[in-house]
């Protein structure tokens, strides 16, 4: 019997059950084993294979679709001051916990309260990695650990991050955190790379997106204020919505061409 509560939305709006997800995970695991059994000397020379064909072995390594550019429209008119659902969902999904105003804790997404001192107008909006087309964090990273996937998602390759923090200096959106101390075992998530001495940030829940789902924050928003989709696909719900209304980027003047747009900014 399928648990109705255990359903997730996909990027195209379809629902998938935990059972389906588990089956997919099992299939992926078998593919990984097959891939691991292929020992290659590089240059296409394969020593031997055990189980599965080479095509299967390569499957998990299939290149991302460069025609896609994942993005999000946040309808700030629906975003209420006290609501933290997107933040809580991200914490749950990616295993970080932050005391308010902690100088060291990791944060991937936060709600920013903005007030116009001239008029008194106030609003609240979520701010996370803006997944820029021209990301300053990627430009400055000496090793290429701060990287942009072919589908536009900006993330940190924790395996080659040396912890220089130059990306944190360069990011205009204060979207990155440094992991200042060991992460307790119970909080570690395989899909959310974080390690002591490395920098980390929102990766648009790449593991979910790759599995055809939407980021945890978007899924959790009770107002449906976070619309995720492919900016390059004119037929996506996101593109259609963006075509019909004005949208804005934070610090648009910097020319970073953010993947996250807002319906209204202060």
């Amino acid at each position, binding site marked *: 019997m399928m648990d109705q509560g255990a359903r997730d939305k996909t990027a195209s709006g379809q629902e998938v059950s935990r059972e389906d997800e588990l089956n997919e995970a099992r299939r992926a695991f078998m593919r990984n084993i097959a891939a691991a059994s292929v020992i290659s000397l590089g240059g296409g020379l394969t020593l031997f294979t055990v189980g599965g064909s080479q095509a299967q072995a390569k499957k998990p390594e299939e290149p991302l679709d460069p025609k896609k550019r994942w993005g999000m429209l946040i309808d700030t008119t629906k975003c209420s001051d006290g609501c933290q659902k997107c933040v809580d969902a991200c914490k749950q999904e990616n295993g970080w916990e*932050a005391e308010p105003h902690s100088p060291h804790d990791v944060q991937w997404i936060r*709600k920013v309260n903005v007030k116009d001192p001239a008029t008194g107008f106030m609003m609240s909006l979520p701010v996370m990695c803006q997944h820029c087309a021209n990301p300053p964090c990627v430009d400055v990273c000496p090793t290429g650990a701060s990287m942009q996937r072919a589908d536009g998602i900006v993330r940190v390759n924790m395996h080659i991050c040396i*912890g220089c923090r130059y990306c944190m200096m*360069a990011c*205009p959106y204060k979207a990155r955190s440094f992991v*200042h101390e*060991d992460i307790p075992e119970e909080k570690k998530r395989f899909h959310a790379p974080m390690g002591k001495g490395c920098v980390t940030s929102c990766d648009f829940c790449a593991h979910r997106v790759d599995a055809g789902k939407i980021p945890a924050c978007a899924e959790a928003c009770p107002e449906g204020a976070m619309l995720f989709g492919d900016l390059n696909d004119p037929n996506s719900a996101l593109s259609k919505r963006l075509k019909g209304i004005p949208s804005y980027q934070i610090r648009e003047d*910097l020319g970073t061409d953010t993947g996250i747009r807002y319906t209204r900014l202060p």
Partner: protein
Amino acid sequence: MKKHFHYEYLQSKVGYYTALGGMGVLALIGLAAAYYMEHHGHAVTGMTNEIVWGMPHVFAVFLIIAASGILNVASIGTVFGKTPYKPLGRLSAVMAAAVLAGGLMILVLDLGRPDRLVVAMTKYNFRSIFAWNIYLYNGFFAVVLLYLYTQMSQDFRVRRYYTAAGTLAFLWRLILTTGTGSIFGWLVARQPYDLAIFAPMFIALSFSFGLAIFILLMVALMKGDERPLGHGLVNRMGRLLGVFVAAAAYFTVVWWLTDLYAAEHRPMVGYLFFSGNIYSWLYWLGFMALGTIAPLFLVFSRSARTSFKPVVTASILTVLGGISLVYFVIIGGQSYPLVLFPGKQVSSTYNDGMFYSYAPSLPEILLGLGGMAVAVAIVLVASKTLRILPTTLADAAVDPHLATGEVAEMKKAA
């Protein structure tokens, strides 16, 4: 007629071994501090998610800037043909490489993952000025060693490339400091930085920091080893220090004047330079008053012609003022929040919109001092094992003009 200078190893004195031992102890304490920070994570330092670069970077950037400036002493002799500076070329080259090594040691040991240094050396993102700097630093060592080789070789076929190597080293150091300044100048998102003037400003700062450190170590080595040192030479170097100190201050003034002109930057200039906070004091009292105006008075004073004290004091003040300015640039610059929504008041659980505070922790300071100690220790060991220190720097020996004229008259009057 071409002048020949004689160089000799340092003598084996108690003072030498005491100094070397002291530097060794400081270096070991610095290494222990680095291990402590790496083991526990940066949570035990004063650095945060807002002040991401702290005291180690202040020391490291100061030393890296100074290293290229130290090499100027050699360049003044080689490239610009100033006779009194020619015997100082070897010491200048060795000291420049040593100070760069000390600075880089601090920088590397402060990385979140210093164990991945090999990654930094093998994976390059060529869009990154940081990656370019790795090439520039490594190249600096290579070029300086080549320059030193052309200076010290007994082979005429090698020595004839001395001027060419010196010119290459001079150009390389200019490019290197341009790279160091651009680490900050190209940070488009941060209001206190984001200016092309950072590159030439850092070059001017390197001239003053480097010459000040060179004067201090040169006087210490020559006096410690009881070798003749002319007042004329030190006075001349002191006056040059005055020119460099003034040039560096000029660039910092243009920096804040430029930002003051743009309405969007005025709150930042007001906060950093004129609000009376720690950073304003570091700039005006530390850098401007103690690190610029006081040295200017000292090096151009009459007593500087007959005594080492004014120039040595001016050099110490230039170093202290320099560290104040680098702290001001790095820590002060980060303490001003990123502006996501210009003209608006912001707040969040992630400390948006706040002025950030920073208190350096003891391990950070010890790591910085350890890097400085390594630099001095390298100079001491090199002076003991290589012929880099002239047997005499008496005025008559380095340049007869220094022993005559006004300086001699002042001596007579004194």
